[in-house]
């Protein structure tokens, strides 16, 4: 039930940030196969959030048809080299960073928001993420994404007791993981604001015609 309610609400509350047709020409020209996902920069106060969010990134990205480097291995390798701070990694030269791993593009993800607020018989869980994909050869931005979601524990609850129980349950164990999963899927969905199919998807190279701007 809770899962269903979450899905429905996610659909209702997800904020779409797509604004007009996107320019995919740089991404098409770069045609990356292998994406390096580096540790996540955290703008929330939850110190564990970036690692949790990082764990949700490989699946949706690989499902878009790209090779995704092993995120935990990459994180540990960077840490061992003194790059434990994600913002240092984000600020580093992408070309040099990529050359270490042999990547074609690098995905920088940032947590803008990751909170669970208890407000009168209801807990509102909010997540907001931004994504930037950069080319490993030129450092140019190939794609950017942004997604925000909210879950209200009181939605769909009949009666005060049920609402109170749900609010406490959500506050003690917020639905961060399912929300992060859904946010990634929505942000990367294509057609939509997301990523066109990578080389491991059969529609690679054939899914851009209807929405791509004239060259």
């Amino acid at each position, binding site marked *: 039930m809770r899962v269903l309610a979450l899905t429905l609400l996610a659909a209702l509350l997800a904020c779409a940030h797509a604004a007009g047709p996107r320019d995919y020409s740089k991404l098409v020209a770069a045609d990356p196969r292998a994406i390096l996902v580096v540790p996540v920069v955290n703008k929330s106060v939850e110190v564990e959030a970036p690692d949790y969010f990082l764990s949700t990134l*490989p699946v949706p990205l*690989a499902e878009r048809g790209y090779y995704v*480097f*092993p*995120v935990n*291995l990459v994180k540990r390798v960077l840490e*061992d080299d003194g790059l434990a701070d994600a913002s240092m990694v984000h600020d580093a030269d992408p070309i040099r960073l990529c050359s270490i791993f*042999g990547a074609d593009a690098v995905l920088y993800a940032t947590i803008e928001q990751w909170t669970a607020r208890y407000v009168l018989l209801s807990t509102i869980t909010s997540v907001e993420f931004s994504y930037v994909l950069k080319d490993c050869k030129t450092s140019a931005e190939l794609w950017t994404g942004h997604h925000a979601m909210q879950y209200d524990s009181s939605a769909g609850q009949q009666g005060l007791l049920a609402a109170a129980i749900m609010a406490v349950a959500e506050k003690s164990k917020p639905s961060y993981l399912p929300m992060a*999963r859904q946010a990634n899927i929505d942000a990367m969905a294509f057609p939509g604001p997301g990523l066109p199919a990578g080389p491991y998807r059969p529609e690679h190279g054939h899914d851009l015609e209807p929405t791509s701007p004239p060259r």
Partner: protein
Amino acid sequence: MYRWGDYDEVLYQHYRHPEDRQEFVEKLTRIILDNEQRGARVPPGAYAEYGWALYEEGRAQEAIKYFEKESSLWPESRVLMKKMIAVASRSRGPTTTGPAGAVEPVIR
């Protein structure tokens, strides 16, 4: 496209409870075996994460085997896997210093 099993949950739990190393290794094994037994393509990164987990356990020789598997299944990983194999080859088997002590710098 791939049979991930509970891949993201496994990574998430590893960050939540880094002390449960055995469980982490076992769960990664299960995902890999589930794919291999069905003749499915093991998802990108899974062999490499598993290899890294073995390496951190001090099981360098086994780790190399999985870095090689990642490299041959996913050619995009070759540059990194070559480095990982070199690092694991230099390691002198199980160490007493624990995961952190067993790790050699990859980036030079």
